[in-house]
């Protein structure tokens, strides 16, 4: 598989549109997106091959008139380019009643660059029949493991991304792929029904498929344990977080908290704490499409800015935020390659990519052994940010009780962790020396603008309120 033929066929038209709109606007860019996405799903009773949710094909034109920004999203750029340019100019005109409200921001930089990026993809090696068969085999393997399983749902969801970015001085294109393989067990025991999930992911189908069979025993074991899980007694506990929950904390605490479009809007307390201790001195945190390799590892962002590795927290000190082109322009900083759109139909915002804590020096077994009574928390369910007031809510799928330094067989589910971000991060007393990134996430901003993200890190020892 290669870069989109469709986008290649529209290069000249995009260049012509940039030139034509340049007569009205000082800064013009075009981003073309062609995302192919498939979802193959099998469960006990049905199977489906359809288009995945990420599929899209279209363009967004971004303009700056010397004061404010303007955008127009459309399905195709072809035909009479001057007429199209006129339609765009007319469509983004502002009513007289609010024109005096236009912000005044300097022009973004448009440095020269022409580059093509591509990453290996093996999706062409797998036919729909083969992938459907694989789903069916995995489903049957799960169902064979327990007669208490009501259903097993398996999905293979590959997608390829082609993006073309053209401005007056810049022409970039990129092609990359990702696949998520998901398995879900639906299990009933003693009248209680539970669901458990396992996932694998990679840029290569071969890797994601090869890894899944080793997860199936754990999936069914988890079903059994969750069916007998008890509610947690609310309180403040010593807690070990698995890499998924560590990543969720990073994401909600100082991922959303350092999205610099929030700095512009005075929505992030972090704006006032750059250079200050916000976490334990053994805490280091990064974000970036180039910071590690996972689902958000693109080559350039939706503003045409190359991928970065941004260190957000260094030895407990907040050192930097992440930005899209507009917020960086407004703040007078360099954009960090974090301008992302849900699709070509939506605005770009400052968004996370791959967000994680760096590994530490502790052994996980020593961390568990250090706890008299507490919990180890596993698997992200969801989380909610509050960058202004530094509150945090993270929901784990389950926890396992630790008594006298040992993991027990006592499962609790679900577990909601909440509290103050600095109190939580400053309570980090141990950081494990291992590291894992979970590449199956998606993230909204507020309650919309969903993009694919990964997060993770080592295990952390914290003290926090659980309910």
């Amino acid at each position, binding site marked *: 598989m290669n870069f989109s033929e*469709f986008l290649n*066929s529209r290069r000249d038209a995009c260049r012509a549109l940039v030139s034509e709109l340049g007569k009205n606007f000082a800064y013009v860019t075009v981003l073309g997106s062609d995302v192919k996405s498939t979802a193959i799903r099998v*469960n*006990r*009773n*049905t*199977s*489906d*091959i*359809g*288009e995945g949710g990420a599929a899209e*094909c*279209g363009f967004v034109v971004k303009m700056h008139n010397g004061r*404010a*920004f*303007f*955008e*127009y*999203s*459309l*399905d*195709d750029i*072809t035909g009479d380019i001057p007429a199209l340019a006129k339609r765009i100019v007319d*469509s*983004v005109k*502002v*009513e007289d*009643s*609010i024109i005096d*409200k236009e*912000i005044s*921001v300097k022009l973004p930089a448009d440095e020269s660059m022409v580059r093509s990026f591509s990453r290996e993809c093996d999706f062409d090696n797998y036919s729909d029949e083969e992938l459907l068969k694989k789903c069916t085999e995995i489903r049957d393997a799960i169902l064979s493991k327990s007669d208490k399983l009501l*259903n097993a749902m398996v999905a293979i969801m590959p997608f390829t991304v082609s993006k073309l970015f053209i401005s007056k001085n810049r022409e970039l294109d990129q092609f990359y792929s990702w696949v998520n393989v998901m398995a879900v067990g*639906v299990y009933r025991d003693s009248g*209680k029904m*539970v*669901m458990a999930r396992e996932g694998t992911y990679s840029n290569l189908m071969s890797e994601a498929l090869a890894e899944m069979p080793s997860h199936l025993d754990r999936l069914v074991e988890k079903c059994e344990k*969750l069916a007998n*899980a008890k*509610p947690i007694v*609310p309180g403040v506990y010593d807690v070990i977080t698995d890499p998924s929950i560590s990543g969720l904390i990073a994401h909600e605490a100082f991922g959303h908290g350092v999205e610099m479009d929030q700095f*512009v*809007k*005075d*929505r992030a*307390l972090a704006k006032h704490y750059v250079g200050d201790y916000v976490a334990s001195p053994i805490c280091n945190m990064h974000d970036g499409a180039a910071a590690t390799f996972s689902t958000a590892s693109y080559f350039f962002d939706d503003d045409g800015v190359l991928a970065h590795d941004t260190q957000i927290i260094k030895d407990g000190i907040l050192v930097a935020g992440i930005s899209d082109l*507009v917020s960086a322009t*407004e703040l007078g900083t360099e954009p960090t390659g974090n301008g992302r759109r849900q699709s070509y*139909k939506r605005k770009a915002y400052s968004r996370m990519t791959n967000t994680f804590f760096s590994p530490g020096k502790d052994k996980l077994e020593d961390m568990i052994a250090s706890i008299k009574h507490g919990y180890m928390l596993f698997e992200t369910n*969801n989380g*909610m940010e509050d960058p*202004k*007031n530094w*509150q945090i*809510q993270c929901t784990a799928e389950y926890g396992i009780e630790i008594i006298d330094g040992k993991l027990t067989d006592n499962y609790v*589910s679900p577990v*909601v962790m909440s509290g103050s971000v600095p109190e939580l991060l400053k309570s980090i007393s141990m950081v494990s020396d291992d590291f894992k990134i979970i590449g199956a996430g998606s993230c909204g901003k*507020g*309650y919309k603008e969903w993009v694919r993200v990964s997060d993770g890190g080592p295990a952390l020892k914290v003290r926090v309120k659980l*309910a």
Partner: protein
Amino acid sequence: MMNRVINILKSTSGISDWKVNSTKTESTELFFVHKSLETVRSTDTTDLKVTVYVAHDGALGEASFSVYSSYNDEKIAEEIEKAKKKAGIIANQSYSLPENESGEYAANSNFADYDPRKLASLIAEAVFEADCTEGGSLNATEIFVYRDTVTVKNSRGIDKTQIKYRAMVETIPTFNGEESVELYEQYNFTEFDREAITAEISKRMREVRDRYEAKPPVEKLVCPVVLDAPELEQLVGNYIGSLNFSSVYQHSNAFSVGDDIQKDAKGDRLTLSMRGRIIGSVRSSAFDGDGVTLVDREIIKDGVGVALWGGTRFAQYLGEAPTGNLGCISLACGTLTDEEKRKAPYFRCASMSGLQVDIYNDYIGGEVRLGYYFDGEREIPVTGISISGKLSTAIANMRLSNEATTYEDYNGPKCALLNGIEIV
């Protein structure tokens, strides 16, 4: 484009049936930083999706794909052939597509009376009219005005189109003092009512001032918890999935028809209906994605599941009549008067990070960013706490307000009073 696609579908052999869904969306969007207009957006896009059905070996397979405006006839034919091949390897239980209905429906909205650009600016004015409290401000505001033209056609004579209007305001009420606090507000509507918009944002401005003044309680609060309509909608919304035809067919439903979801109830019994339309709801619709005309259905009566609901495919699998995929919830009011509610202390959740409801693990809880403790005389703003409890206990002892309200896709009691929830 749609007609071109249909002509090629009709001329393709080996297809049992087909369906084409089209949504043309035109939007005007304004993005403000504080009161300054940072970005103006406009969109004109069309999603066109084709589903191909192939009957084989007593089974039915289907596969879908998008058609993009760049596709010529040759490309469309190629994609249809690919989908036909995919559908040929899928073997699901057969079902029939809905037949022989056509119609054009226009949503009852005054948006049609306005130029979208003008409407967006009027909405902005209405929002900023609420930005007038001392110490308060709206730090970010996004305004979206949409016009959707939704069409579904199939090979069995379904040909329906509806025009829908919707608007969304996302804004961040903020109060600035020694510290600065904010709340999140997302307000969806289908009718332009300047006073209603200003009133909604003004209410949030008052709440954010309260959040600024709010303090964690000195002592642990032990009292019933009150959920307002937004959280109540989330709570009851968790029960509707189990009564959907697809959940039952796929064995993923937590309960079913005949099951009492309020065992040992001591409060008001739940009576809940799924509805196609609620005035003002952006999820109101005349028909679903298959073209099935939406039919309201009562699914829970007096706390007991009484009927299933959902789309045509899984309805046919279960031998039931489809309701279509209904998007709105109607919950019957209860017996709790405002006077009765105020006879004893309670804790009201005004703004939560997100109510967590886990029907499988029997859990309800979440972090409360702004709550009000009613001490028997007045509501005192409280923050820094969470709620947590057993869902089954909360539901069994729930009292529902006798006053109705409408919030987005929910029409029902304006609040619920829950016992047995821990406030921590």
